[in-house]
């Protein structure tokens, strides 16, 4: 009798144990939830995108996106562990599962997606490869840089594109490939080791804002030589996590389109005026769990980072030191490329 009771108890304990540990959502989502923290790979310091201040608080478009994801999953934008990565470290960190997500000025390319088995859930910033030169040099166009020494960061797509661009025009340049952070390359450029510095135009603007002698001492040429769709990156082996990150990004864009802001997100969704708002209110609650997020994930994400327009203006736009034009990053119905599929 006693033995039966013991066996019965043991079986119940084992079943309870199995239920407690059984996997439901994606592996990465499970890890984030059990850890209580999102491990987000960011740059090692690019103003406007991901940059720590003196107290160690990260700011920027990329950093805010990390917060939006953390809020959608964990209900708290502060639950992000920012992992500072050199550009050459971002993919090893992701494939080694040292981070859950990389939001680090990373260009979406087919090669990366297919060969490195990565997934790009969407585009956070439409950029292009530009060139920065000293204002005093009087350079007005790329043609004037033929034969010039140009600083470029190792491990980026820019190195190859730089050579290809000039080769296609029967010209040569001398790339000075620097194995360092973006700030390290900028430092080499600012100290006069090369005539120009090539990188994402947004990154050039960010680094120019910190230039010795002031931003006005340097000029970013108007020509762009490539398309650089920058966005978050995840591993391809967890489709649920990819979906979650994708829909957090789309929620930020959809919120701007629907006039939902950081300030009114909670009340706007609660009041649910109009069919679009009603759909958001209904779907966030109904599909949040299936997404692996909270039932109020939409509101949480917007409250954490603001809608896409707010994020842009605060970090890189008119309200920031960079004062970048929105250009292709405007909403689709305002002449830009930012477009969120319906929820």
């Amino acid at each position, binding site marked *: 009798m006693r033995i039966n009771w013991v066996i019965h108890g043991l079986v119940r304990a084992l079943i309870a144990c199995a239920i407690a540990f059984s996997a439901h959502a994606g592996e990465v989502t499970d890890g984030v939830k059990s*850890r209580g923290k999102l491990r987000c790979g960011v740059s090692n310091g690019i103003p406007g995108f991901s940059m720590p201040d003196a107290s160690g608080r990260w700011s920027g478009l990329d950093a805010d996106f990390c917060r939006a994801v953390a809020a959608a999953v964990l209900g708290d934008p502060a639950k992000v562990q920012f992992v500072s990565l050199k550009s050459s470290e971002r993919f090893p960190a992701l494939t080694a599962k040292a981070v859950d997500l990389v939001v680090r000025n990373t260009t979406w390319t087919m090669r990366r997606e297919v060969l490195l088995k990565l997934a790009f859930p969407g585009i956070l910033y439409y950029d292009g490869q530009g060139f920065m030169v000293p204002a005093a040099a009087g350079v007005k166009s790329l043609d004037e840089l033929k034969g010039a020494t140009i600083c470029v960061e190792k491990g980026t797509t820019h190195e190859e594109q730089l050579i290809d661009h000039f080769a296609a025009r029967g010209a040569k340049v001398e790339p000075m490939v620097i194995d360092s952070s973006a700030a390290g390359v900028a430092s080499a450029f600012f100290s006069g080791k090369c005539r120009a510095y090539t990188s994402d135009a947004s990154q050039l603007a960010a680094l120019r804002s910190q230039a010795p002698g002031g931003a006005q001492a340097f000029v970013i040429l108007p020509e762009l030589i490539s398309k650089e769709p920058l966005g978050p990156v995840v591993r391809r082996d967890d489709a649920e996590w990819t979906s979650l990150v994708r829909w957090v990004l789309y929620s930020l864009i959809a919120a701007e389109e629907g006039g939902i802001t950081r300030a009114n997100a909670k009340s706007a969704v609660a009041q649910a005026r109009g069919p679009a708002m009603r759909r958001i209110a209904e779907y966030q609650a109904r599909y949040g769990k299936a997404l692996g997020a909270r039932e109020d994930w939409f509101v949480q994400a917007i409250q954490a980072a603001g809608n896409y327009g707010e994020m842009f203006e605060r970090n890189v736009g008119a309200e920031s030191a960079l004062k970048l034009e929105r250009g292709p990053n405007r909403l689709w119905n305002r002449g830009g490329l930012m477009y969120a599929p319906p929820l």
Partner: protein
Amino acid sequence: MSDLQIYLTVGIFAVVILVIAFDLLDLALAALLGVAAMILTGILDEKDFLQVPNIAAGPIALLFGGMVVAHVLETTGFFTWLGTPFLRLTGGSGKRFLLMLVAVVAVVCAVLPNATTVIVLAPLIIRTAQALGVPFAGPMILTAIVSNAAGLLTLVGDPATFVVGSSIGMTFGQYLKQVSLGGVFAVLVIVPLLPVLMPEVWKARQELKPSGPAARLERPGLAALALLVLAFMVVMFMLGEALPVRVLPPSVAIIAATFALLLVYSAKVQPVDEVLRAVDWKTLIFFGAIMCLMQGFTKTGLLQGLALQLYGWFGTNYTLAALAILAGVGVLSSVLANLPVVTASIVMTKGYLVAAQAVPEMALSSEFTDWPVAVIPVFVAMMFGGTLGGNATSIGASANIVSVGISARYGERITFARFLRYGLPVTLAQLAVGALYVVGMRWLAA
């Protein structure tokens, strides 16, 4: 996988290894309990059980095929017949027996997989040891150790060398030029250790009786056909992958086992049931369970996660990094199956080299083959670690597991500690030789 599950995985693995090491439970039961614990804690799910056969089915098929063919050969009296001249060649000297064993195993390993070599040669070795009046556990352990080391002689000699070589696009010829000599050293370094490790065998002298009439094959026709099956297996191991319809070694083993079963069935020597009962299922189940545990361990990503740490520790000092990888993979391979260890280490090493900017980011892809000469020794270090580290313990390599299983069936139990007494010194010597070889390669590449 959550942090708690990562801790649990490491804990379960550690408990299973300790239980086996201290001989507290039967090893197959210990491994199965570990698997059960991983299932109940959600570490292993149905997806994992679909993935495990990708790694485990091949080696298990090889073991199964080898066991069936060896058993069928035994029923013909082949090993008794072969044992007499082999014993004569030893001249009754234990020293000569051990030296012959090293040479024969190294040569046979060139054409047969490690564990299959142990299975096929075991009856011969055990009979000879018994005839010389020495315990056969030592020679059986030596057979496993030499077969593992001989796996370094060619690119296809060991699954670990093959996986690492393939991951960097190394060809058979390149391997022969760059790595095979290291394999020769790894085998030769065993020889001076033999008098110290197995003095009772080394010093043994047995007066052999004057040769009487040679032992006769009980069923010469069947023996000839069984040998034909063995020859088919050997030839197909070498050529099967080049055929228009690719036949990989595990498939060859299954086909050979089927032919062998057909032989005993047709000749009515034994019922098929009896041949299948003679298969060492416990070893196969233990091996499968260990592979399941490895799947759980691989999922933790602990090894892959060291990529950035390696860069932090060693920067661009590839010699130090190579030596650390050799030692680390060696230690891990001594208690874990080497194939999953090297598979995870490849991700770690590629990540390290990309982070160190020795290679472009595309090197993380399996398509990348343009590896600079300077970093090849890092991968060679991994081959040495993975192949030789497994020699230390009874569970470090499939050949070891098989030699322990066969010895038990013939009446000599090899505990974890007993294997370790022979395996650890040999492994340390071999890894030291491997380290010197890797340093030499780095020096030549500089």
